[in-house]
């Protein structure tokens, strides 16, 4: 069935475009959220390795 669908799809450009779009969207969301995260949370996370006890 998949074979049928893919053959019908004709040229495979969408195969490249869809993941590229997914990546761009994920990247944008991750970036925006990471950059707008609260400072005290970020500081606490960053100091985890240094927290000996």
């Amino acid at each position, binding site marked *: 069935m*998949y*074979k049928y669908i*893919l*053959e019908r799809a004709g040229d*495979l450009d969408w*195969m*490249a475009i*869809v*993941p*590229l779009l*997914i*990546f761009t969207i*994920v*990247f944008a969301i*991750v*970036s925006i*959220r*990471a*950059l707008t*995260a*609260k400072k005290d*949370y*970020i*500081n*606490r*996370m*960053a*100091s*985890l*390795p*240094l927290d000996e*006890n």
Partner: protein
Amino acid sequence: MTQIEKFSYDNKSVRNFAVATAFWGIIGMTVGLWAALQLIFPALNFATAELSFGRIRPLHTNAVIFAFVGNGIFMGVYYSLQRLLKTRMYSDLLSKIHFWGWQSIIVAAAITLPLGLTSSHEYAELLLPIDILIALIWIVFGINMFGTILKRRENHLYVAIWFYIATWVTVTVLHIGNNLVVPVSFWHSYPVFAGVQDALVQWWYGHNAVAFFLTTPYLGLMYYFLPKAAKRPVFSYRLSIIHFWALIFIYIWAGPHHLLFTSLPDWAQSLGTVFSIMLIAPSWGGMLNGLLTLRGAWDRVRNDPILKFMVVAITAYGMATFEGPMLSIKSVNAISHFTDWTIGHVHVGTLGWNGMLTFGVLYWLIPRIYNTKLYSVKLANTHFWIATLGTLFYTIPLYWAGWTQHFMWKAFVPEGYLQYGNFLETVTAILPMYGIRAVGGTIYLLGVFVMVYNLRKTIVAGSLIENEAAEAAPRVQHVKVKGEHWHRWIERKPITLLLFSTIAILIGGLVEFFPMVLVDENVPKIASVQPYTPLELEGRDLYIREGCVGCHSQMVRPFRWEVERYDIMGDAGYSKSGEFIYDRPFLWGSKRTGPDLHRVGKKYQDAWHFSHMREPTTTSPGSIMPPYPWLYENDLDVSLLPAKIRALQMLNTPYPEGYDEKALQDLEKQAAEIARGLKEESGYVDDLEKKEIIAIIAYLQRLGVDIRPAPAAVK
């Protein structure tokens, strides 16, 4: 007030993995040095099959990747995971099984690879029984890691742990994907995919072995041990979030850059190029995050050898991850592919990034778990300079060698002929560079001995704290607060993180692979291409056993200078994907220390091959190819032939029904024919038709001839 819980960290497993890291490091690098020396002095294989270049080269790569770096990963993960999660490893028994299981896999590899038991898939050479053992031990590691995560006292998962999780899940997927085989016997099997498809799966695996074994776990180690050594938090935790998701999402796509200008369909090559170039962004994000962590601490780098190792490691990571995308641009790849440039590039990553970071972590960690001080900081500084010098002496000559090779391969005289028509000229020209490379390797290895001495002295002076006492408050289940940061939700839920990472890495693999397998027109069939005869099939398996693919490619790229050199009859052209549909596994190779062999069929007479493989210098004076005397002594083992035919039939190779019973007859007939032709010229081997050399000659004479207009001409 919260009750503080007392517990202990398991340092014994950390110590075991640390010792194994150093031990296998020395073994793996020594084998590498030996292989490098064989390229200058072929006699160093002592005419012994088990010690020949083709067999010990995979031993070197497997040993340094999976034994040296592998144990290094586990050492770092076992140390940092417990401390970041404020809990002991989930199970001491599983830690023990993991440690001894992994070492037994390495021993199995060290025995089977010299015996010629190889799949020929680069960095996945080990055969099915060992692959199953790897899968089991990897699952043990997974249970131990996720068990630890689940019983943690710290709510949040630090970024290093995300990298560990992504490593675990991706290596699992890669290992299964690249080892799908149909077994023929206990050791022997054929890959499910053939030719172009096999190549795509292999390099999806191969590239991501670099990405998810040599890179992501080490980035995790960087994010933990660098702040520890620098005594300051990572430069930007925000950047590390972006770094993580972008890196794992993009890396998985980049595999096809190993197959540029091959018979892989153009769209797949382009995807590989695009995503490889995109990789610069997250890679350099990670590198800058590492280097900037040292802001305000650079004065300490001057005195602290641990920081020095880490700085050079991260810098090497930055150089290698800039160079990688550049090498993925098609016009640059046309130069670098199949040359020593690739080997130089790889060693910037391995000697620089993996080696130096491992050394830094070892120097940091051993004194701590032995409750003492490093025996000699001065010696560690000496090691640093030796290692840096060794890396330079190793890599620079190989860059030079790579460019020399390329420009000699493609040089034409004004009359339109190749200037260096004899491939051997392009080999002898770079032997001095191979010599300097071996010197570089020796220097680097000497440094490791210095480190082992220093650490040994440290260990003797201290005593191992097997169970390091620690205390922490029990985990407080986080209650969702309105407006909390979204990533907290993922960090608190390791299984969700696992799931998201899996989705991120699967998208790339599936999108590239499904159309390749499912759409027939991606691999256009060529009517004249027929399955191998039984004798050729056996010869092919010998070609795989001897590791010929380590030096000889089978992929004539569509360049004038390649077609001119390799398509000597001028009637077959560059390699087409339809020519490889019966190739299980594909044997395109990734390095030309010797010439390409895809069009070697019927180029020479049988007698030439017969003399050549017994003593290559008789036909090619100055050749660095080793002699293969055992092929003239060993009788060809045909016991598996019927099973091989049946397995291939199962994989749709069109042998006639019931051919497994008749194959041996055909094999003997063809062998007798070749032997008869040889006896007239070199009639001094008894039972010549039964010898292995006959099968290899049959295979070589078949290469690339199907596509030529019949009858194939004899030069």
